[in-house]
């Protein structure tokens, strides 16, 4: 089959690789109809996530048609149309039984590797380095889906691929980020990053009842999408004024947002002059994995007693963590890879009910064979790119 493989820093290629096979009774094989490039794929592309290998098949946002099921998969049949969540979860361990699917204790066969870096292993993830299991991803014609009786959700309406594809990751991830903010109604929520996940964090905060939602980014076209499509009430373009903390104060009568969502992660671009330069150097020489401006500013901007919700991806260690602000302002720091399986059904219903149409983030549609162009366009934000969907 054709598949997008990682071939070193800033390099992906579409190559012929063997077709996937059922390896366990609880596996299914899915023929992929739509797949997407995620912002977190750019961290792999840029070479900042450790334990990538040349030849790794990328991609963790995909959907398609079931073409084969193992004998332990009772809920799916050949021909079913499914969306596959990016975290691989067994559904049986103590964590899964408590709906913390991204902390699944059984789905990562490289648990020993992950334990060395993170203290504990976390779930397996499709196409996302060997730390998260070494699973082939879904920017390909076919994918093997382990624990297919737990993850995939059947799509039985005539919704288009683009309306449901993002159930695989970015819609539940954005929603999870907003859910962590304990929104009860009337809050002010600030969202760092107006990429696809940030757009859905904004839309979710609005759905959950936030009164003001402030989008923060350096690209006006993304802020325009946040204001016009996602439902943000205000926008800060830090390309015009980099002092985000002060601008957030002014927008909130001096108090600061009740909660701040970091939908940026490890490759933040703004930062303060000298610190940003130092971090670029440390990251380039692999002395530090994170450029942590977004998380630092999130902590500094959040009102005392508020919540900082981290859904942007980090991979290792970060310098200059503002522990003093975190502690003295009595902040709650919450984070995680989204437990997608928990949110699949309710978010599918919201899409069916018309509460949200996630296809608004799609700006580029490309054939799978042009995936390398898709990575470049997305990385450099050319042509007002927000989200790239690939068609095998």
């Amino acid at each position: 089959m054709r598949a997008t493989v990682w071939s070193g820093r800033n390099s992906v290629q579409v190559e012929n690789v063997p077709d996937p096979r059922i390896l366990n009774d609880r596996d299914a094989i899915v023929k992929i109809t739509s797949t997407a490039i995620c912002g977190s794929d750019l961290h792999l592309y840029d070479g900042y996530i450790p334990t990538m290998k040349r030849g790794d098949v990328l991609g963790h946002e995909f959907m398609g048609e079931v073409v084969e099921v193992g004998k332990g998969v009772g809920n799916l049949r050949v021909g079913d149309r499914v969306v596959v969540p990016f975290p691989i979860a067994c559904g049986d361990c103590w964590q899964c039984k408590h709906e913390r699917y991204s902390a699944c204790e059984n789905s990562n066969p490289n648990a020993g590797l992950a334990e060395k870096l993170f203290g504990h292993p976390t779930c397996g993830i499709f196409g996302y380095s060997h730390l998260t299991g070494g699973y082939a991803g879904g920017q390909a014609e076919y994918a093997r889906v382990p624990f297919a009786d737990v993850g995939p959700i059947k799509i039985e309406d005539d919704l288009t691929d683009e309306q449901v594809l993002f159930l695989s990751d970015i819609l539940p991830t954005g929603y999870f980020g907003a859910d962590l903010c304990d929104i009860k109604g009337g809050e002010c929520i600030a969202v760092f990053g107006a990429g696809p996940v940030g757009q859905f964090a904004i839309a979710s905060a609005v759905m959950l009842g936030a009164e003001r939602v402030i989008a923060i980014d350096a690209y006006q076209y993304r802020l325009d999408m946040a204001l016009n499509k996602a439902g943000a009430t205000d926008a800060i373009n830090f390309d015009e004024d980099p002092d985000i903390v002060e601008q957030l104060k002014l927008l909130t009568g001096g108090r600061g947002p009740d909660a701040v969502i970091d939908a940026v992660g490890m490759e933040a671009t703004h930062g303060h002059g000298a610190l940003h330069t130092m971090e670029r150097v440390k990251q380039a020489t692999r002395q530090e994995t994170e450029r942590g401006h977004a998380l630092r500013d999130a902590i500094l901007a959040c009102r005392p007693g508020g919540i900082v919700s981290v859904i942007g991806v980090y991979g290792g260690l970060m310098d200059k963590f503002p522990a003093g602000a975190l502690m003295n302002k009595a902040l709650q720091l919450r984070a995680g890879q989204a437990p997608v399986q928990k949110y699949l059904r309710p978010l599918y219903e919201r899409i069916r009910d018309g509460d949200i149409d996630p296809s608004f983030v799609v700006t580029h549609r490309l054939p799978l064979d042009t995936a390398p162009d898709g990575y470049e366009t997305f990385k450099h934000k050319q042509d007002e790119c927000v989200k790239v969907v690939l068609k095998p």
Partner: protein
Amino acid sequence: MKGKAAITVYRSREEVERLWRDSAYRPKYIGDADAAVTFNDAPGDRGTEIHVDLERTGRGGRLGDVVQKVVGAEPLAKVKDDLRRFKQHVETGVISRSDGTPEGESAERKLKQRPAQPLDEAELQKAGI
């Protein structure tokens, strides 16, 4: 700390002890090494803790030499592989396999990962799948 490992399995102590003795589940390496194994109830109905101590044998003696003979280097890593596979097998009914680690959790594979792309026929046979 050296030579000790533990894991928690989300099943009752009775079931865990029974399956531990069952030839279909019994961890081979830990069994061959005859390490001391104890089972405790985890707090809050969270299942059963399995504790393995490589410094003592199941008969109460010291182990060291036996371990080296059976496996060579890194006995603790092999014990941890065994515990994770046992937990996976009991809780999920399968051993988790990926393209990078097709045999399932394995100390030898940690540093010799396959690329995360599907295996061809020859590799599948070699991995015993």
